[in-house]
């Protein structure tokens, strides 16, 4: 069934969008990532204009994250306090990111930067997670108990706060900084930033994996809602029909994904996420390196 999208101005198959939404929703619920880093390239691929894809994707992430976070709230696996601290940094970061994005857009190199950002961050994070999870699995097989570093430089910083759900007593500076960096990247890359947030929470803040997913989703809702509003009011690129089709599939998928995630071991969950991140990274790097079949690209030049 073909449906005409009023803002994107293209006609697409409604069932294809529902299916894509569902698939990405499952991943979103499983790993606590918004799924934007997968969905945005997929939308480009089916012919949605990039600007519309990025903006609409932010709106869809709001829905799937909200659906996912409700499931986590019931299970009490959301550290609301940590979420709020991260959010403060996240909102400031997102605002800074939009300013940076518009500056780079004026230079005409924004596409390249976005892609390089993807390759760089996906590569580093995916690689680190993969190695770490592999070691963790090997250690549990050998019967070793994983030892968590109790004291590092993070514990020497001031403004300490107790995060009961995460079982942490740390300074608020690292979470705010993590939120800020993720916010900047989220705005530039047009994603929720979960795939950066989740590893940062595990490895930098030392939060337990089970709490990480819910908390990440919680803060993603607000950051993406903020991004959606920015896109809707400045670029007019949020396509509500596209968003509805994606999110109907997405919210259902997120519920299923959350239930799958609970049944899996933390190491398995991490290794799967790492593999997925590396796969997307590989595809993007390949596209940058391989000789294109068409050397020219057409872009609508508005504004001048």
């Amino acid at each position, binding site marked *: 069934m073909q449906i005409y999208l009023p803002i994107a101005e293209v006609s697409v198959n409604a069932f294809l969008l529902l299916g894509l939404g569902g698939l990405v929703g499952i991943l979103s619920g499983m790993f606590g990532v918004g799924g934007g880093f997968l969905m945005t390239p997929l939308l480009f691929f089916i012919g949605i204009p990039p600007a519309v894809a990025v903006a609409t994707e932010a709106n869809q992430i709001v829905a799937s994250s909200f659906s996912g976070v409700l499931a986590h709230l019931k299970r009490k696996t959301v550290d609301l306090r940590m979420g709020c601290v991260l959010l403060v940094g996240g909102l400031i970061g997102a605002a800074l990111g939009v300013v940076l994005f518009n500056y780079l857009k004026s230079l*005409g190199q924004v596409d390249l930067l976005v892609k390089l950002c993807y390759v760089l961050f996906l590569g580093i994070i995916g690689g680190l997670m993969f190695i770490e999870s592999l070691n963790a699995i090997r250690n549990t097989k050998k019967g070793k108990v994983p030892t968590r570093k109790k004291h590092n430089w993070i514990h020497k910083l001031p403004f300490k706060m107790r995060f009961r759900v995460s079982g942490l007593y740390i300074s608020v500076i690292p979470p705010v900084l993590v939120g800020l960096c993720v916010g900047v990247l989220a705005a530039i890359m047009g994603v929720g930033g979960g795939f950066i947030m989740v590893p940062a929470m595990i490895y930098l803040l030392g939060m337990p994996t089970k709490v990480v997913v819910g908390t990440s989703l919680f803060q993603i809702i607000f950051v993406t809602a903020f991004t959606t509003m920015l896109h809707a009011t400045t670029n007019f690129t949020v396509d509500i029909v596209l968003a509805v089709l994606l999110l109907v599939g997405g919210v259902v998928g997120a519920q299923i994904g959350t239930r799958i995630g609970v049944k899996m071991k933390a190491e398995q969950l991490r290794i799967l996420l790492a593999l997925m991140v590396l796969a997307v990274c590989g595809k993007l790097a390949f596209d940058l390196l391989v000789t294109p079949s068409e050397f020219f690209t057409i872009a609508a030049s508005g504004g001048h």
Partner: protein
Amino acid sequence: MRTLFALLLLILPTAITAEEVVLGLSQDEVAITTSFDGSEIFVFGAVKRETTIPEGDLGVIVTISGPPLPVTVRRKERRFGIWVNTEGVDIEAAPSYYAVATSGPFDEVLSIRDNLQYKVSVPSMIEAISAPTEVIDASSYVNALLRIRERAGSFLLLEGAVVVDEQTLFRTRIQLPSALTEGAYATRIFLTRDGVVISDYETSIDVRKVGLERWLFSLSREQPMVYGLMSLAIAIFAGWGASAAFSLLRN
């Protein structure tokens, strides 16, 4: 007056205004609804003449052109091992859609001179190129635009698609794609004899969004704040709805 005009035509053997196009369109507007999936325009008409059929080969050309929009064509180049966008050429007006249907091979139906004068073929439609000074071959950018749009099916040359009966009646069908831009689609008909345009006629087909599509589009432009909040409200509601539905299923 009319009889005088007819008399004049009889006296003067020149055939410049002897033949005229009378046009019919299956529809003069295309409504884009939610289920819009392309449209077919049926263009038909007749050659009105008040003399006997003149000498020379008759040709009929029908063009439909989408609203002209400015575009930037950028070229990719390998820098430090990766492919990046380098110089760009701004093309001030390129139609988002352009179809040319002819009654025979294009070169035979229309002379080069008249093609340039009336801007009939696709390349002659692309207007006013402003290239930065460092770009040497601006024409390769225009060719790239033509190539990409042709491959995407937005630029069409339909040779022999116009059927002419008895040198008087003509008809053609032109398919409009599903990805249509809103606006007035200029429709032109040219009548030629031996490649020379002897009559032309221009009208427009109004392509516009209607109903829900119209409402959403206007809202997003006129009240972006409301539109954004509405999008978020739908997202939150859908998220909550799915969560509630699943907990009901479990219990």
